[in-house]
C-alpha cells in the first residue's frame, strides 16, 4: 500500500438500507393476536412435556422441542420480573423516558414484554426504587385494537 491519503482525500460514500418486509407471524401467534383484539384475552399454550404455560403463545416449546398442547387464558394482572427505564434517545427508536418490563401474568410460566405506564419518571432512581417495591401491574387494553402486541400495555398497580 502507498502512504495513507490525507483525510480530505478519503472517499466517504453515503449509503442506506431501506427495504420493506412483511413479517409472517404464523398460525399460533395470529390466533394469540386475534384473541387479544376481539376478546381482550391473553392466551398461552402449555407444553405437554415441561408443563409450562408459555405466554405469549408459541406453537412449540423450543426447550423440549415438542408441539405445544392446550390453549389457556392467563390473568390480566402480573408481576414484574425485569424492567428498565429508557432515558437516552436513539435514532429510529421511541422517544424516552419509557419503562419496559418483562411481566409474568398470573397463571403463566413465562414473561412477556411491554411498556409500563403510571410511574412518575421525573426522578429515575426514585422510579427504579418504586418499581422494586411495587412490582404488580395490570394489563390495560387499547380502545382501538389492531391485533398487535401494542394492543395493550401494563399499568403499575399502586399500593
Amino acid at each position, binding site marked *: 500500500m502507498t502512504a495513507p491519503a490525507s483525510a480530505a482525500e478519503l472517499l466517504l460514500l453515503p449509503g442506506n438500507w431501506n427495504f420493506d418486509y412483511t413479517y409472517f407471524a404464523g398460525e399460533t401467534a395470529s390466533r394469540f393476536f386475534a384473541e387479544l383484539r376481539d376478546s381482550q384475552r391473553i392466551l398461552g399454550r402449555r407444553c405437554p412435556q415441561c408443563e409450562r404455560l408459555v405466554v405469549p403463545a408459541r406453537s412449540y416449546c423450543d426447550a423440549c422441542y415438542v408441539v405445544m398442547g392446550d390453549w389457556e387464558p392467563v390473568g390480566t394482572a402480573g408481576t414484574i420480573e425485569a424492567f428498565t427505564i429508557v432515558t437516552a434517545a436513539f435514532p429510529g427508536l421511541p422517544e424516552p423516558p419509557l419503562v419496559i418490563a418483562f411481566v409474568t401474568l398470573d397463571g403463566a410460566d413465562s*414473561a412477556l414484554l411491554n411498556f409500563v405506564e403510571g410511574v412518575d419518571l421525573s426522578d429515575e432512581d426514585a422510579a427504579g426504587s418504586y418499581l422494586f417495591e411495587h412490582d404488580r401491574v395490570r394489563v390495560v387494553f387499547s380502545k382501538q385494537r389492531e391485533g398487535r402486541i401494542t394492543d395493550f400495555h401494563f399499568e403499575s398497580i399502586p399500593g
Partner: protein
Amino acid sequence: MSGEPIGIMGVGQTPYRRSNPELSAGELVKIAVDQALADAGVGMDAIGAVFGGVAPDALAGIKDIDRMSISVPGRPYLRFNTGGATGASVVAAALAWIGAGRADTVLAVALERMGQASTAQAVFNTIFDPIYEKDFVLTTITMAALRASMLVKRHGFTGQHWAGIASRNFTNAVDNPLVIGARARTPEQVLASPMLAWPIRRYEACPTTEGACALVISRAGAIPRSHPTSWIHGMGGSSDTYSMGERMNRLEGTLIEMVPLRRAAELAYRQAGISDPGREVQVFEIQAPFSIIEAMAYPALGLCEVAQSRPFVDRVLAGETGIEFNPSGGAQAANPVSATALIRIAEAAQQVRGRAGPHQRDGVRRAIATGQGGATQFSTVCVLGGDRP
C-alpha cells in the same frame, strides 16, 4: 481434550478504534491476517481452510461483507454468526475441522465494520422478534439493563459495583496499545456519566468499535517444537432459548444465571481437567460488553456460588481474588462485536505465550476466554494453556 493436541501458533490484531475510513474492509482484515501468519512463521500456502466471523451485516451496511474481506481463493471457507460469540464460534469450528483431520493449519478470522453505521442501536433492535418484542425499544443496551434490574433486586448490587468493574476495565485498557483512545476512568467518573437505560450508564457500556482479529491454529504435528504456542486445553459452547421471557421461570436458571455459559464452562473444564477455576486459572478475558454481564459471568464460570455473587464482586473490586480479569481492558473498553470473542481468545493466548505486551501478567500458565452473544443466548468458554496437553 482427546486426540492430537491443537494450538494457537499465530495471533494478529488490528488496533481497535471507532472507525477506519482509511482502510477498506479487506485491508483491515489483511493487517490482522498478515500479522498472524508472520507470528506463526507460515505463509498463506500453509492454510488449509479459512473460518470467518461477522455478526449482523447491517452494522456494516454490506451484506455478507466477509465475502469481500475474509474468504481466501483456493481454500474451503465457512462463515459463522452467533452475535457477540461469533469469534469464538469461528475457533470452535476451526478446532473441529483440524480434529477431523481435514487440515493441518487453518485461519480463524473475524471482522467488525460497525463504524459505517449511523446508529448501532437501531440495527441491534432488528435482532429482536418483530412479532412479539421488537416494538418495545429492545436494543443491546436495554437487554442488559433488564438483567441489571434483576441483579439489583436479587443480589442487592448497586451502581458502585457496576462502576467498579467498568473502572477497572477502562483503566486496564490504558496499557493495551491496541485500544486507541483508551482512558482510565474512576468509579466516580463512571457514575457521573449519563444514564442510558436505568440502571445502566454510558460508561458501564462498551463503545462503538471496529477491528479485525486473526489466529493461525494448527495440530501439534504441524507446529515446530520451539514455537511459542498457546495450547487449547478445553473448548465448550452452548445455546439458550431465543425468547428472553421464556428464560424467567425455570428450574435450571433465569435470565441472569447465564445457563449456557455455565454449561460451556462445565464442558471446557472437564476437557481441561479443571476442578477449581479460581485457583487453576490466572487470567480471565470475559466477553462482557457491560459491567453487569461480567458480574453475571462470575458464578456461571464457577468462581462463586450464585448466592455469593455480590460478595464475590466486592472481593474482585478489593483485589482479593488473586485472579486477573481482562488485562486487555476487555470488551468494555473495545468491543468490535463480530470479533470481540476472538479477541478474548487472542488475548488469553498471548498471556499464556508471554506475548501480551505492556499488559502481560506474570506467571500465566492458564487463561480462559469467554464468548457471549445474542442477548446471552450463545456462550463459549475456551481454556488456553502454556503446557502441551
